[in-house]
């Protein structure tokens, strides 16, 4: 990993985040209030979970378009248990996480053992399957009255600071160490940089990929638990919300590439923050939701464009360095 270069790039994204914050602070005095900032963090948590899994998949040069639907499905599974009279919140969450992991494992297996082409197609299919399943298990109804233990992660705060975001910080630190300092973490970057060379170096790339997609499923399940705590309900119809694109955008803004081999937890965190600040700003400035969609869409296109420009700049720099 190029510490120096990714550092200088992240400086750019941090700057973008700071400029947005300054602009919002000037435009609306409520922005800098403690309660508003805490609500930004609370909103960030859900996307931060999804983006973690997405990042792993993107580093392998893959993608997981089923994270959003998986999160909703896992939440609805808990809702189904709730409706069926299960009272143990712990049991609900265990089932939720196992279900998320199973979905991710299936995504990984489709890709690596059944050799489906790009995961874009298989995970897009999985997204629809999960959407339908989420509606099936809930009977297309919203379900509420979850046990407190389930709602704790998404709802609780410590003197106003959301617990969900504390968990996110811990998760990001652990994942950062995992990606940068363990053999498996390094193998993920290698697989994304050159799958065949990595396989021929004796790394079981099929297992590495399956691991990434399974992790993505687990992260989606955690996101599902957070969403239940935050809203108090589960709703199968939410499976069509653009959660996946938010996660992808966060990763790409943070320096990941569709070509794989790149991306960091720090960058992804900044990407998540940029997106939630943007959404928060829309609300504060009472921008109507249609306009919000347009702007967010443009931001995502801009992020992908940045990915392309970044690649070209790097290629140019390399050419110049080689010419020297």
């Amino acid at each position, binding site marked *: 990993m190029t510490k120096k270069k990714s550092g200088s790039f992240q400086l750019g994204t941090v700057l973008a985040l700071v400029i947005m914050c300054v602009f919002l602070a000037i435009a609306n005095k409520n922005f800098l209030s403690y309660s508003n900032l805490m609500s930004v963090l609370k909103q960030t948590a859900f996307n931060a979970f999804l983006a973690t899994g997405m990042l792993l998949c993107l580093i392998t040069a893959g993608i997981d378009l089923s994270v959003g639907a998986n999160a909703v499905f896992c939440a609805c599974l808990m809702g189904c248990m709730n409706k069926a009279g299960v009272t143990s919140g712990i049991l609900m969450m265990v089932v939720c996480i196992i279900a998320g992991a199973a979905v991710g494992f299936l995504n990984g297996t489709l890709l690596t053992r059944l050799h489906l082409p790009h995961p874009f197609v298989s995970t897009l299919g999985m997204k629809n399957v999960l959407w339908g399943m989420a509606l099936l298990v809930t009977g297309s109804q919203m379900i509420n009255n979850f046990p407190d233990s389930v709602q704790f992660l998404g709802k609780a705060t410590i003197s106003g600071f959301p617990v969900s975001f504390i968990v996110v910080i811990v998760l990001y630190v652990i994942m950062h160490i995992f990606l940068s300092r363990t053999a498996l973490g*390094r193998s993920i970057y*290698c697989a994304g940089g050159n799958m065949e060379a990595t396989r*021929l*170096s004796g*790394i079981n790339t099929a297992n590495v990929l399956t691991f990434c997609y399974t992790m993505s499923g687990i992260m989606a399940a955690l996101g599902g638990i957070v969403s239940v705590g935050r809203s108090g309900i589960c709703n199968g119809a939410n499976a069509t919300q653009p959660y996946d694109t938010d996660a992808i955008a966060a990763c790409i803004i943070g320096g990941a590439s569709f070509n794989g081999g790149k991306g960091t937890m720090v960058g992804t965190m900044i990407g998540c923050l940029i997106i939630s600040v943007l959404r928060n700003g829309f609300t504060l400035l009472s921008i109507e939701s249609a306009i919000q969609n347009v702007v967010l869409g443009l931001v995502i296109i801009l992020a992908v464009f940045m990915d392309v420009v970044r690649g070209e700049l790097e290629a140019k720099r390399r050419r110049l360095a*080689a010419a020297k």
Partner: protein
Amino acid sequence: MSEYVVELKNILKRFPGVVALHNMQLAVKPGEIHGLIGENGAGKSTLIKVLTGVHLADEGEIYVNGEKRVFKNPNESAAAGIACVYQELNIEKLLSVTDNIFINKWLKKGVLLDYDTMHKRAKEVMASLGQDIDPSKAAGTFGMGVQQMIEIAKAVLIDAKMIIMDEPTSSLGEKEVEQLMRTCRELKSRGIGILFVSHKLEELFELCDRVTVIRDGEYIETRDIQDWTNDSLITAMVGRTLENQFPKEFGTKGECMLEVKDLTIGGVLDHVSFKAYGGQILGLSGLVGAGRTETVRAVFGADPIDGGQIFVKGKETHIRSPKQAIQAGIALLTEDRKGQGLVLPQTIRTNLIMSSFKQHSSGPFLDEKKIEQTGMGHIEALRIKTPSIDEIVGQLSGGNQQKVVIGKWINADADIYIFDEPTRGIDVGAKVEVYNVMNSLVKAGKCVIMISSEMPEILGMSDRVVVMRGGRVMAEVDRDSKHFNQEDIMKAAWGGSLDD
């Protein structure tokens, strides 16, 4: 009008650091089948690319029907009537035969494509080439022979004066070869000149009117076919003198490290058997496509096999993946350095430890200190030119990249080192350093297997040579055998037998 349909005079083509062609001559008459032959790397592909306008010659002239021409791109060459059927066919398998033939030259009725006429024309052209088929079917539903005819049909349709066929029979069955030869004779009778590039001597003798031999990018000789013999062709192809650019050092022959018995992959390898010993370099020689790379990939578990046994140090070992091969003590340095050897966007540091994560970890974490220590050791010992261990591998030169791959495998601490074309595309100085690595491995009692298409390298570095052809082992030659020379090894590689 000139006597020749296409004539090349004194062509010189340079690439950065190499002269690929010099003093190149070629003259093809109309209605002639002209053979072109040379060793791997003799410059056949470059010559074809100059003819088809892919490369622009630095010096020399090209004449078409006596008229001087300069081809800046393939379109200009095609417009002048030169067509090429490449070894790798340019067929869109999902499109119909008609679409493939008329690609970019569609016949229209108003704004719409006129498929009635195109199908009719396509059927006629294909029939004239001996293929009575339905051209509205997808090209991919037909065999290689028909697909090749589609390429030839394209050439006929643009009224080509000369058709280049690059190794046209390499992927064809026996019947298809016969059909191709009939077609060639038919094209010849229409006055089209054919440049027939082939590795197969018997085909040249059966088909060609004249044959030109090239070697090391240079024109050697053109003779009428009746003035060539098998032996004179081979001598003309390899007849260079060997300089001692190989710092060969000898180890002591140890135990048999690797035995391959009846290794078979349907249609690729046919009962390949050989032994490789510690303290020795075993050279795998043969022409491109002889099955050498396929053999070592199968040994390394990179591709599945259909049959055969592999013994490592006398013990039968079932290797199903590269991971298991490495555990058994085998390392494979692939031919395609960038595609299969390195993760180009990653650092030297990471690339060096890819096959030895375990040795470079303490507990669950990578031991960066140790990685840096061994890494700096390799950078020094292998003389990798780089500002730091955190340099991106993609930014290094070819020779330095190859050294990183070597460092990676030294880290894996294998007993059997397989080098597939280890010096391809690297400069002379780096080559010598690669040879020295092999020397030191052999001296440490390790077993080295080297695939090389360069005869001097095979002769210069091997203790023993196994010659392959068509997925089979043709001959085994010891360094002290009387057959340990270019002519005999070449002879075996071209399918001849070595008598004692």
